[in-house]
């Protein structure tokens, strides 16, 4: 039997739906220094910024990316395909304060993130400005 991988875009759309249901707005591919954040979920008054790294299976790679997001977001998640979730070391993720979203037919939170204690306000401002401009452009 062919073991087909789900597309990252499909996961991303399901994560987007999850946050929209929780009254967040979303913005994909938000620049951060020389990287970009897969998705930012935010309250319309920017009182809360959540950064999400979406990966099908490579949770370590996702973690490396997500670590950077702590600089500009109140909370950070990695979203992974449910099928590869058994590979994740949840204890390490908890220690790092990074949340986990499992995605299958729909997305659900399985590890709650801690609030980032290393927000660099200049970088958070850049993220907000970028989103505001994108929003303004419709």
């Amino acid at each position: 039997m062919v073991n087909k991988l789900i597309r990252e875009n499909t996961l991303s759309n399901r994560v987007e739906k999850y946050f929209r249901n929780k009254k967040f707005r979303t913005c994909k591919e938000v620049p951060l220094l020389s990287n970009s954040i897969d998705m930012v979920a935010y309250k319309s008054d920017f009182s809360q910024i959540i950064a999400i790294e979406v990966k099908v299976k490579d949770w370590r790679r996702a973690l490396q990316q997500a670590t950077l997001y702590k600089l500009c977001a109140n909370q950070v998640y990695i979203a992974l395909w449910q099928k590869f979730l058994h590979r994740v070391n949840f204890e390490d993720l908890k220690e790092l304060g990074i949340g986990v979203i499992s995605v299958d037919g729909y997305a659900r939170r399985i590890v709650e993130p801690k609030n980032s204690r290393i927000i660099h306000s200049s970088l958070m401002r850049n993220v907000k400005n970028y989103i505001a401009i994108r929003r303004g452009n419709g």
Partner: protein
Amino acid sequence: MVNFQIWYRIGIMAEKDLFSDLKATYDGVVVSAHIASFYKLAMTTFLPSLGRPFIVDPMTYAFARDLQNIKRGNDFRKSFQKLIDWYGGKVKTILEKRQLLPSDFLKGKTWIKDTVDTIVKRTVALQLDLLKPGGPVQQSLSEYLEIIKETKPQIKKPLFIVAPYFYFPSVSDVWYSINLQVAKRAAKATKEDVFAVICASKETLLDEKDVRKIATDFRRFKGVLLWISDFDDEKDSTEYLAGLVQLVHLLDKNKKLIYFLYGGSFIPLLSKKFSYLRGYSRGICYGDSKDVDTEMPTGGGAPVRYYMDLTKTKLLEGIARVFYSDNPGMLCACQICTSISKGVRSRKGTAAYAAEFFDRMNYTLTRLHFAHSHTSEIESISKMPLQDILRKLAKNTRTANSLNLNFKYGIQFSHLERWKDAISK
């Protein structure tokens, strides 16, 4: 004990001011031949103004690789065109059609005088003539500068002449013989000291016979410049490091000076074992490793990278921001970082402090930080006995482990252990 020397390579002329500002942090300057020929007039005042010895990298290897590396679109980059014009004659005619091939130098067992002579004589002449006042504009400019005491142009010649050179994938490759031949002829073409270049593949390091042959064949020169294409001391396995140590060991036994054309922080450590290894050249915060087949840099667009002494690696800005926010007490205390810190208003030891610190950091400052920390590093290596250096590498590994650098920040440090192993053997 002679200190290990740092020679910085001028990548683009826009770095001129950086070189002037950092004079106290390096021992010499390397100028690539295409830059030297394109900016000849500027060089006549700039190089003497630094008050440091210089050498010219002839860059001839680039003529025997894919020419697209030195082109923009269909045309040669202006600086390389200028260099090709300098060679002129048959070399220029060939390069207008294709890259240089072994058959341009050697037919059967006979050397083709025309090409060999042009390459040798023009390469040597370029270096000897670089600071000679040429046209009337240049002459009056240097006279004027002397009158107004703007510069003291004592340094008129490179410290030594670098022979033309070509990359060889193995010693059995015909380019090896060509490389050796042009170097021998260059040594005969001038009374100045001539250094030959060993520009080899990494794989050469894995063959003990090849390594021995290179060391034997190159012992006739006053000194050698080493460039192992694509060798990366942070990533390469112990067997490559061991091969390099063996090559330097054998060259050192020849009692001829050795410099590296490119290299990372492993190279200065090696100088503790081999007294004829005198220095290395590199870019300021780049150019630790270079492949002969990479396109020539054009400048601009380089990301901000912050040098971390603990792992001897350069961290991308985002990673540096996260790491130093978690560990603000570990921020560097070099002259540059200290002066940036003075302007930071947030409370010391907090993440906000690190945030403000990196907000103030920019591309140029990270390079200044690198140069200053690297100089201190070399000074401390010069003072420390080898055993202490090995202990320090082990200590840095333990610290990096305890900080969980790899898992938490994706910062690699396993090379420290490999370096220790390679040097201890």
